[in-house]
């Protein structure tokens, strides 16, 4: 089962968990409705759209309200510690969660005890704590942007706020950051680095780069990294190889951006609406390439 985990900016929302039902620009979990606008709902909404496109079961999600005080994140950490085993996860994506070393340690222990280790994806705050805990290589995929990659490359940095190296980055510097992140054991097996060029890496090797179509205003739009994480999680859950899933997600995200014809004021919901069409094109092109290679 694909499990998606994170917080939403709703102070009164208690812990909610269940299958995701999509309806127009919203998704429902039990009686609660969420707009697909930025953050965890963008990731979940995108993953649910991809599951629907591929004819998969709806993902299961674990959500709680948190506006930065860490209260909702605590509920999520506690739930995962107690209930992960019952859910039978095969792929887990962890997202906007308050970094908390002690709580992460308890979830790590719960993950370690699972009979079969799921494929573990970390992004946003959960990726920060996964790195800070020194257990990055226990996870399977991180999806950092270039600033977050510089943080992974810097052994001493506990948060991207303390990383200077990326401000005026060049492509060759990105490659150096990738190498340093793996060397310091601060990266999992796979990395999908989101930027002007997207890099897909395994064990320190750059497998693929994606740089077209080049839609530079996507950098302005909050949530366009979250959509990549959601797509990748759903594609891996559908049985695609992680590197293929990363490649297709990066390419489809750019294509969805092109289809939406965005400005810097566009909201991510407009991009998400174009993702099913974009992903269909990318999956077909990928299949055609594979056939040609055979």
């Amino acid at each position, binding site marked *: 089962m694909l499990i998606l985990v994170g917080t939403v900016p709703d102070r009164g929302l208690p812990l909610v968990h269940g299958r995701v039902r999509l309806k127009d620009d919203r998704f429902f979990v039990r009686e609660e409705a969420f707009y697909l606008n930025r953050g965890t709902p963008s990731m979940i909404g995108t993953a649910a759209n991809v599951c629907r496109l591929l004819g998969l079961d709806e993902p299961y999600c674990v959500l709680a309200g*948190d506006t930065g005080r860490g209260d909702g994140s605590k509920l999520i950490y506690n739930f995962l510690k107690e209930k992960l085993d019952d859910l039978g996860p095969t792929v887990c994506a962890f997202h*906007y969660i*308050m970094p908390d070393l002690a709580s*992460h340690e308890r979830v790590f222990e719960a993950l370690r005890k699972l009979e079969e280790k799921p494929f573990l994806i970390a992004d946003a705050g959960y*990726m920060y704590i996964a790195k800070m805990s020194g257990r990055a290589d226990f996870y399977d995929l991180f999806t950092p942007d270039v*600033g977050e990659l510089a*943080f992974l490359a810097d052994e*001493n940095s*506990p*948060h991207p706020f303390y990383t200077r190296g990326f401000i005026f980055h060049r492509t060759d510097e990105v490659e150096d950051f990738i190498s340093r992140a793996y060397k310091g054991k601060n990266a999992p097996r796979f990395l999908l680095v989101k930027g002007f060029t997207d890099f897909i890496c395994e064990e320190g090797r750059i497998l693929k780069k994606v740089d077209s179509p080049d839609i530079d205003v996507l950098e302005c739009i909050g949530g366009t990294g979250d959509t990549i994480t959601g797509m990748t999680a759903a594609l891996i859950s559908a049985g695609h190889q992680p590197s293929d899933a990363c490649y297709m997600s990066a390419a489809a995200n750019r294509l969805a951006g092109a289809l939406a014809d965005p400005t810097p004021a566009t909201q991510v919901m407009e991009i998400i609406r174009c993702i099913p069409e974009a992903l269909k094109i990318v999956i077909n092109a990928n299949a055609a390439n594979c056939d040609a290679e055979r």
Partner: protein
Amino acid sequence: MKISRLFSKKSRERKERVSRGLLVYQDTSEVIRAERILKRDGYEIRVVGPPPCLRTGCDLVIEFPIIEQIGIEQTLKEKRISPLEVVAISDEILEPIDLCQKKDFGDYLMIRAANMKLVVDKRTEIIVNVSGGGCPDVPYLAERLIGLNLDEAPSPRDIGHTICAYALHIAYKEMLKEMDNYVNTGRNGP
């Protein structure tokens, strides 16, 4: 001669280090509040990253001149925001990012500070997008800020609680400066 210089440099560095202390709080929002109070009262303090032994997750601490410790503690006690711990510095301190990067998209300006980005429509000064970051208040800040004019928008430091909010505040301050400059120069820049 060279050796004695080296020694004096080392002892000077040690002296400078032990002349500073750190105020440690339960969470980042308390750090932000204490910082505001102490700066308003004229103390020379700054927000920095904690040394490894004090890190718990999403952390900031306040560095202060140790000679001011009594006054600072008294001020904070009066405001009912005493720190959990006061420690002398004897370990590595992380400098937060203070550089901003700006990118001009024609009618829109994007400012990035650390991992946070703020985008404003230059014609109307309305905040149109907030992106980056990973702490739970980032989507909350985006929800609160997008659609508001820069002048009427609350400062991210006042409504956020985490390091990401602090970084967004740096971008917000820089954006205010850029837009002032834009208006004052007859809208020829930035």
